[in-house]
């Protein structure tokens, strides 16, 4: 299973970024092999529609699940349509988050938890 975690940096020691669509990096982790790669998030500076674009890219990469701090309504809609599982409310070091995820400590999120533009610093 391939999971994408919104991250502030490009290593497993980086912190989870609270913004799904406007985070600087995604850590893509393969739970079967234990391999990971950090990818730049080109949507982080999108003028508008960052959530849609980010979710599209995640879907194109064949990701099975997404872990982040918060997910907005547009990203939620696209990820759901792509049958990608969504786990929000995560925080802390990426490595710890992966361990918690493997132990099944996160529950799937049923609805978006922030409004549009949360990731632009406008609050919720």
């Amino acid at each position, binding site marked *: 299973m391939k999971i994408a975690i919104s991250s502030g940096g490009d290593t497993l020691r980086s912190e989870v970024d609270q913004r799904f669509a406007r985070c600087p990096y995604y850590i893509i982790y393969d739970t079967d092999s234990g391999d990971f790669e950090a990818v730049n998030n080109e949507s982080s500076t999108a003028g*508008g529609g960052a959530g849609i674009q980010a979710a599209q890219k995640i879907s194109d990469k064949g990701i099975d699940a997404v872990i982040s701090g918060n997910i907005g309504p547009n990203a939620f809609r696209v990820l759901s349509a792509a049958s990608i599982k969504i786990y929000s409310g995560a925080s802390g070091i990426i490595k710890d988050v992966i361990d918690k995820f493997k132990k099944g400590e996160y529950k799937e999120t049923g609805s978006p938890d922030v409004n549009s533009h949360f990731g632009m610093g406008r609050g919720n």
Partner: protein
Amino acid sequence: MIISVASGKGGTGKTTVAVNLALSLANTRLIDCDVEEPNCHIFVKPDIESRRKVSIPIPQVNDDKCDGCGRCQEVCAYNAIAVVNKKVIVFPELCHGCGSCSYFCPLKAIDEKNKEIGIIEAGRKGGTDFVHGRLNIGMMMSPPVIREVKKYIDKKKTVIIDAPPGTSCPVITAIKDTDFIILVTEPTPFGLNDLSLAIGVVKKLGIPSGVIINRSDLGNKKVENYCAEENIPVLMKIPFDRRIAEIYSGGDVIVEVLPEYKNKFRDLYKKIEAIINNKK
């Protein structure tokens, strides 16, 4: 001549300047392009003679024809389309109505359906023509409404455009292709900061500009010093005058209550005319 009135900061006096300038001159057309919150009409009180709806074409995907190739998503510059699991998802609130998706669809599976996003009202008050646009509540796309309002520019008249505040797309849509930009500011740190942002935009557009300092006897001299350093003419100063505040609060027009201001606004126009003629 087309003069646009803009500012980085909101609440500096754009509408006051636009309305008073328009009502001080002959053969003018005042166009309120602040379509998210037009307010020139509160002061001008025009008789509205025509109303027209503004729509943009929103894509409608025909699922029987669409094979989910994703071309529409690739060409959408506004991230208004996602294609996952071979299904197209359209986000109409992000759509600018550019038409790229339907144009590039290889299977011609996209039709366009008009979505009403705003209204234009036109009328007059005395010798001044009046036009404004109003974005419908809940809509986010103001530039298409601004572009429609700007079609009312009549080059045979002196056109005064009241722009929205800020420095983003709606402002640029309102002020581009005008002959001169008046930037209204106030002598405060906020006024200076946002003026310098607006000057950055104006310089990129390459349109001649000048500054009006409103409430000019408040605050400090930093705005004036900045204008001198940047070689931007200060065209007019409007003092912090209780009478002006009362006129404004009552929804009245300065040049109608204090006729001496009519000459000040005519002088402003002459200065602008001189700057433009010098550039030619």
